[in-house]
């Protein structure tokens, strides 16, 4: 028999108490120190961006042929991270995977924050940052529309709609919990703010009916987006002519990779959060194990894609394609390639073993390694392909500068700052939904676990 979704048979009240108390507690010194630290790193991010604005993007390592460098690597990386949330909330919701309830809130929050991090990069990586809004289809005196043939244009729509729907979905899911927080609030300010956020939620039957319908609809809307965002992002590369980019396998490969990295990031965060806030009974080993299983599957999909690329390069008989892949595995950036393969293909294999996939330290380290590997996957795809394309006379390598590094590190700073704020001010766990999967929520089948 499977372990129960929520351990220790808590009552509805104790769930509410547990989750709300995190939000209602006083600021601890540890929290303040941590927040000071991580928000300074976020400031480094904005400082580095400011410097780029001032000096020009030449402060990065980009050149010809490497027109794109780390900012685009970071963009694809963060968009990928942003996949797990909506997948967990929307697709698992539609598939009636009830175990999602313990993790969907933080996964969705992570999605939002990752997409925020990602969304910054296309804006700041352009040469004339002050006119990057020209990428949006805004009516203007020049009577110029953007070029709808450009995959970068598609990105704007894909990422834009994904962010919008994810945000809406997250917010709609938060409304009942905002109601709870409002009702429990003791200070006027809290009452006011949570009151506004709860938009008049009173938990009435009719509200629940409307709410659940809306949630279902949004889940339906979000589902195709999960697949489309990274598909479109992969078009940036797949529709080009550059060997190593011009590949039809990219859409499914990118989506699998995105889910893979997204789950890894959720894992990294939740392992910390459940420990820090003693949520082990809500985010149980069963949840973690399920996520590890998904990482095992998607990791193997990614591994399959790596192999398939090589096969197709050979099978096509296209010399340029073959050279690009040879170069990937044995060329200048081979170290990056093998980091990627080790982290993304070998590390998840640990999860074949129950003992390892239920060991918190193992999964924590593995999840971090997977994200390192996924960052390198984007690095390998973007930079190794660009550095050696058609004409050997134009080959040239990319070397990151201090500003590349600061921007990457800084983006993590922003991400964790946002997540830290989220964990402090919003309910980490979807109280309403978790209550729904408790045995007492289903009184007709008492004692039966799902």
């Amino acid at each position: 028999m499977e372990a129960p979704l929520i351990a220790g048979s808590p009552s509805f009240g104790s769930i509410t108490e547990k989750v709300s108390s995190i939000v209602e507690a006083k600021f601890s010194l540890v929290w303040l120190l941590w927040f000071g630290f991580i928000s300074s790193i976020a400031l480094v991010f904005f400082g580095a961006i400011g410097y780029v604005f001032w000096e020009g993007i030449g402060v990065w390592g980009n050149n010809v042929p490497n027109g794109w460098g780390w900012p685009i690597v970071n963009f694809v990386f963060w968009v990928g991270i942003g996949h797990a949330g909506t997948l967990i909330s929307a697709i698992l919701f539609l598939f009636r995977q009830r175990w999602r309830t313990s993790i969907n809130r933080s996964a969705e929050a992570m999605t939002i924050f990752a997409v925020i991090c990602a969304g910054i990069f296309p804006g700041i990586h352009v040469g004339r940052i002050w006119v990057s809004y020209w990428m949006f289809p805004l009516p203007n005196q020049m009577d110029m529309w953007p070029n709808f043939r450009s995959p970068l244009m598609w990105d704007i729509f894909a990422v834009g709609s994904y962010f919008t729907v994810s945000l809406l979905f997250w917010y709609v899911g938060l409304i009942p919990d905002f109601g709870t927080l409002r009702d429990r609030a003791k200070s006027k300010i809290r009452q006011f703010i949570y009151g506004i956020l709860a938009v008049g939620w009173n938990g009435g039957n009719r509200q629940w009916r409307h709410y659940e319908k809306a949630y279902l609809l949004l889940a339906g809307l979000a589902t195709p987006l999960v697949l489309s965002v990274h598909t479109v992002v992969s078009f940036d590369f797949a529709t080009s002519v550059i060997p190593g980019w011009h590949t039809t396998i990219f859409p499914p490969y990118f989506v699998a990779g995105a889910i893979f990295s997204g789950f890894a990031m959720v894992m990294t965060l939740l392992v910390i959060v459940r420990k820090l806030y003693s949520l082990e009974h809500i985010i149980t080993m069963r949840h973690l194990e399920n996520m590890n299983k998904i990482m095992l599957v998607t990791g193997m999909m990614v591994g399959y894609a790596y192999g398939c690329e090589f096969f197709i390069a050979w099978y096509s008989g296209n010399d340029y394609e073959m050279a690009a892949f040879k170069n990937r595995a044995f060329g200048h950036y081979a170290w990056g390639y093998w980091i990627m393969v080790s982290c993304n293909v070998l590390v998840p294999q640990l999860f074949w073993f129950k003992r390892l996939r239920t060991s918190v330290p193992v999964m924590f380290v593995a999840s971090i390694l997977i994200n390192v590997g996924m960052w390198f996957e984007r690095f390998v795809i973007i930079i190794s392909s660009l550095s050696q394309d058609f004409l050997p006379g134009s080959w040239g390598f990319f070397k990151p500068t201090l500003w590349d590094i600061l921007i990457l590190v800084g983006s993590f700073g922003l991400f964790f700052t946002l997540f830290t704020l989220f964990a402090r001010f919003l309910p980490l766990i979807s109280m309403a939904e978790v209550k729904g999967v408790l045995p007492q929520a289903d009184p007709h089948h008492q004692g039966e676990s799902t």
Partner: protein
Amino acid sequence: MTKMTTHRKSAPLGGRDYWRSLDELAESAEFKEFLLREFPAGTVELGSGLSRRNFLKMMGASFALAGLAACRRPAEKIVPYVKQPEEIIPGIANYYATAMPMGLTAYGLLVKSNEGRPTKIEGNPQHPSTAGASSALLQAQILGLYDPDRARQPKQLRAFPASGRTVAAGGMESNWSSFVEAWRQLYTDFARSGGQGLAILAESFHAPTLARLQSQWQQRFPKATWVSFDPVSDENSHRGIEMVHGAPLLPQHHFDKADIVLSLDADFLLGERDAIVAARGFAKRRRVSNERDDMSRLYVVESLLTLTGAMADHRQVLQSRQIPAFTAALLLELKRQGVALSSELVASLQKYAVHPFNSRWLQVVAKELRRHRGRSLIVVGRRQPPLLHALGALMNQALGNVGQTVSYSSLNDAAPSDHKGLLALAEQMGRGQIDTLVIFGGNPLYNLPAGMDFASLIKKVGHTIHFSPYRDETSRVVHWHLPQSHFLESWEDVRSGDGCYSVVQPLIEPLFDSRSRVEFLHLLATGKQRSGYEIIKESFAKMQRRSDGEAVFNKRWRRLLHDGFGTVKKPATTLPKFRYATVARQLQKTPFPQDIASSDKLEVVFYASAKLFDGRFANNGWLQELPDAVTKLTWDNAALISPKTAAALRVKNHDVVSLNYKGRELKLPVWIVPGCADNSVALELGYGRSQCGRVGDGVGVNAYRLRDVQTPDYGVGLTLKKTGATYKLASTQDHGSMQGRPLIREATLADYRENPNFAAKLVEHPPLKSLWKEPSYTEGYQWGMAIDLNSCIGCNACTIACQSENNIPIVGKEQVAVGREMHWIRVDRYFSGDLHEPSVAHQPVPCQHCENAPCEQVCPVAATVHDKEGLNVMAYNRCIGTRYCANNCPYKVRRFNYFNYTNRYDDVEKLAQNPDVTVRFRGVMEKCTFCTQRIEGAKATAKREGRSVRDGEIQTACQQSCPTDAISFGNINDPDSRVAQLKQQNRNYEMLGELNVKPRNSYLAKLRNPNPELES
């Protein structure tokens, strides 16, 4: 875009499989190791803040003209003309003929002037020295004119001892009248003594007026010494002719008439005198329109890999010092094969009969030369001793080439470089016999051989006066420095190498308080100032018959000013006298070296920079940033060594080595060049300036510091030691192998005849189809380009012409090192074949203007689009700088403004820019436009005249400058246009055409014409 598969034929095409052998080569462990060694990873420096300042400094200097007096015409005040000058229409450029003097030759130019300021230099199409073409050096002179580091006014650094005055340490800014006053005092003294103790050290010249003033000076001061000397000169050549003929003459080589060319250490396509004419003539005999055409054959014997060597059909790599003995062996072989040669001479050569050279090669070359009597040509490089030039002349004479492929012009009106005279002057200076030394041009303190120790010699001279364009190394140690005008500011007359009389006309008033060479020499000779215009006009008048009258004279004068040159003197067709005995005696006296330099006693070879020449152009940013034609290095010189030597000495690229030669030491980085002679180190002259200006100061290493007084050209006994330090060199091309890709397609002439369509057949691909209905470009003008790789010699003239025409900024060494150079047309250089005797090919790559352009599709803001004439155009104002277009460009021709490379231009600096081309801002992508401004200009003219644009009416800047006519441009919709005709040729192919990008530029495959007897 449909994905295309490239299949390469496994069977050799036409019997010789270039690409497979390349593949094999690329796979060989040795080659891979070489690649790793030669091209180590990532050459990037962190710390962009600092480098940015550096390049801005550089950039600013390249165009800066701060402090330019606003009253001169080029400072455009926003005040309209009260009376508009008749010949100036705002927005319409005028062209003036002038000439650029350079040693014993001069280049006829046509200079574009926009509202009174020169902006672009072209060759004068009528002038025999350029015939409309130019070179990187000539093109870059426009930047030299606007160089803010030029000397602005006379400066007195210390008082003359006799004057009794004192000058503050560091000197004081002065003016011409003070100098004239000071000079007059000396002048009267010397006039009284007949010039005892007076000497002039001048650069060589070939100019009637200067010669006239020189003799005037000599008459005034009969006891004075005049020495002309250039650190890089043709002295060996005319001394050699002098040896056989009795008088110094300049050889004129007619490559257009030669079937067989043998170059003995002569880089006649780039490094020698009058290389433009040579390249043009050579290319003429290499041009092939179909498989029935013939082409000349080029044999090259040389030590370092030059452009000429790269074009060779057969190349023998020998140390420079072996080449004289090799020539002797060749002479004996010619004799053996029955060529009539003086027996006295042959007798004196007998000791070279036993030699280490490839006898088969010698036999075949001798046979070819003999068979093509009167159609062969032997050229000897300026590095080789006079004796070898004498032997070359003798061989040409014996082969009946004199009067056919080689002729000789006299050195009237010339003061040629005189090495012996220099030594004599140095001796006089050393003995304290020189009281007053006028350094008339040149920079002896920098570029005289270190062994001479000119710095201490000059201290023994009582009065020193230096006249030069910059306050350079020499200017710091003299009493007076006087600024010399740029040739674009001067009135002069000059003869080119073939004796053609040309006039140097100013395009602009001197920007600074400077004088031209004739004005200054006039002052020296007469003690009076006079305008250059009057002096030149007087010279010209003296050349006319008095009986012609003034009207005729005025007409001729106007004609001269209009054409830029007078009548072309017919050069002598024969050498009347041949002094075999002298040559034989000389051979006995100074035998050729017969040993081979070894790795512990290396050979050192000095060669003039193809960019900075002898160092005089070191402050020119365009030239500094131009990749060397062979090494592709920018902003530095290096010790060039062969891969084998590098392996033996355990050094690799960027390693700093210490060179020791005759007790002198020089430290500089190493660059490995396949195809250089083993145990021979080549050093490029012209770098390592310390006082030339903000661009050139401290760039590279001064190789003159290793030069020996007696044998300045090459020598033996150099030792090379690794210092353990490394120094990053900035090269624009890190990979020299084509990786077996069919980019430059090449065949031998024989294979081409067998397989006329080899170029197109080299790549097989499925039919190129599109999913969509593609736009058809069949209406109106459709612009296209064809580049004949068989003509291209890789000389880089196109790159600088483009830079000048299109306001392309320079970015500085750090930016080049990270791969951000901005050149719109680059010349790729690939090695193939054997690592030690590689074959080298060059390929100019401009934007290919794909009809189905990958760059256009991906731009999110539609900043790069297609126009209806087939041009891939850039809207700079719309560009936001995503760089996606550059990523998706298979040819990597797009260039990005990573920084604000142009924002330091103030109002005056902008004068150097072409007003017809937008100056680009930071964050904007740019690339070759096919000179869209020229297209639009021609279309406007045609429209006004109610006709369509004629073929040849539009020349792109690269095309116009190309000395070999390798680039053609025009309307491909007109089947009679030259470009359309070329595209019909069977050698025509599109690089990466299999991607279905439909490039508008195509290439004509390269051919080589090896001798079947040497092919095995």
